[in-house]
């Protein structure tokens, strides 16, 4: 006997994510899922962000890593609320991990929640964390073919941060090709070309974040 189901494999995750999303929206909080490969500069981007706008945008941070609290320690130096999740081997964060981390993070009063995912361009794409936006951080040394090779994750991004722009003159990186591929794959994604070392382009990234925070606040419960 055949029984039709049509049930999502990750429905358990999606249910928790929906609950988180409703909570974030009600609180007027702009939650961002920051994804990208190891070494792309996700933590550096968050450091720059909290250093320059941490208190103005009232940023809180969740750091996801397989092991260590190195990233949370880097962020804590800036005096913003931060919680480290250690996945203990899992290649991505899931909604249940984020919900658990929120037990240790007071979100009332926050305007932005940056959730740094485990460094990986594959698995995090599949797991909804209840965020308002997904951001992919990638960097010049990784090569200009990443959009073609990992289309699933880039196709989901509201914004793509291309980091380490200061290395452009030292690398054979086809910047116009990268722009074209991203534009074709995901025409709605905002491309932000930055350097966390020189500071170039970071202003546009922070404007993007601030706009998101403003929209979340205005449509939120207060």
């Amino acid at each position, binding site marked *: 006997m055949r029984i039709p189901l049509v049930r999502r494999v990750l429905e358990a995750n999606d249910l928790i994510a929906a609950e988180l999303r409703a909570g974030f929206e009600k609180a007027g909080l702009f939650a961002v899922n920051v994804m990208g490969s190891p070494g792309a500069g996700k933590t550096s981007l968050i450091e720059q962000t909290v250093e320059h706008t941490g208190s103005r945008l009232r940023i809180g941070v969740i750091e996801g890593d397989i092991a260590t609290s190195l990233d949370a320690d880097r962020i804590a130096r800036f005096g913003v609320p931060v919680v480290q999740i250690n996945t203990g081997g899992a290649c991505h964060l899931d909604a249940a991990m984020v919900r658990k981390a929120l037990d240790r993070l007071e979100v009332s009063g926050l305007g932005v929640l940056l959730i740094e995912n485990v460094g990986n361009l594959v698995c995090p794409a599949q797991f909804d964390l209840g965020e308002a936006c997904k951001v992919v951080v990638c960097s010049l040394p990784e090569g200009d073919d990443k959009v073609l090779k990992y289309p*699933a994750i880039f196709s989901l991004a509201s914004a793509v941060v291309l980091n380490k722009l200061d290395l452009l003159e030292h690398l054979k990186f086809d910047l116009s090709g990268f722009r074209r591929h991203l534009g074709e794959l995901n025409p709605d994604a905002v491309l932000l070309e930055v350097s966390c070392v020189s500071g170039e382009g970071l202003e546009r990234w922070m404007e993007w974040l601030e706009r998101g925070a403003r929209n979340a606040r205005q449509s939120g419960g207060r």
Partner: protein
Amino acid sequence: MHELAATQSILSLALDEAAKAGAASITKVSLRVGEWSTIEPDCVRFCFDVLAKGTPAEGAELAVELVPVRYECEACGLHYTPADGGFSCPGCSGRRGKLVSGRELYVDSIEVRHAHTARSKSSRGK
């Protein structure tokens, strides 16, 4: 590499539905897996065989229907699968397309046996 967790979900969904239907065993589980679902079907098969041992789904066939990535061109409406090395429309070279399929990851259906027919089930290979 989260196929083990995904397979665990697939198995619990299947067992849950089979129990609701009062079935004794599951003979087939059919999945729809999008090309961009980040799930590797062969890996799911391997995990399924391991996890299903000792459950009513032991020995069940796992059928995977792969759903290709399809875009719909905003300019001319053509549905197309992007070629390697680009995502533009092969019809009009339009560069704004919307993903219409390829992210699916769900259990489509299961096939079950009830107790009175379950006895005929012989031990089968993978």
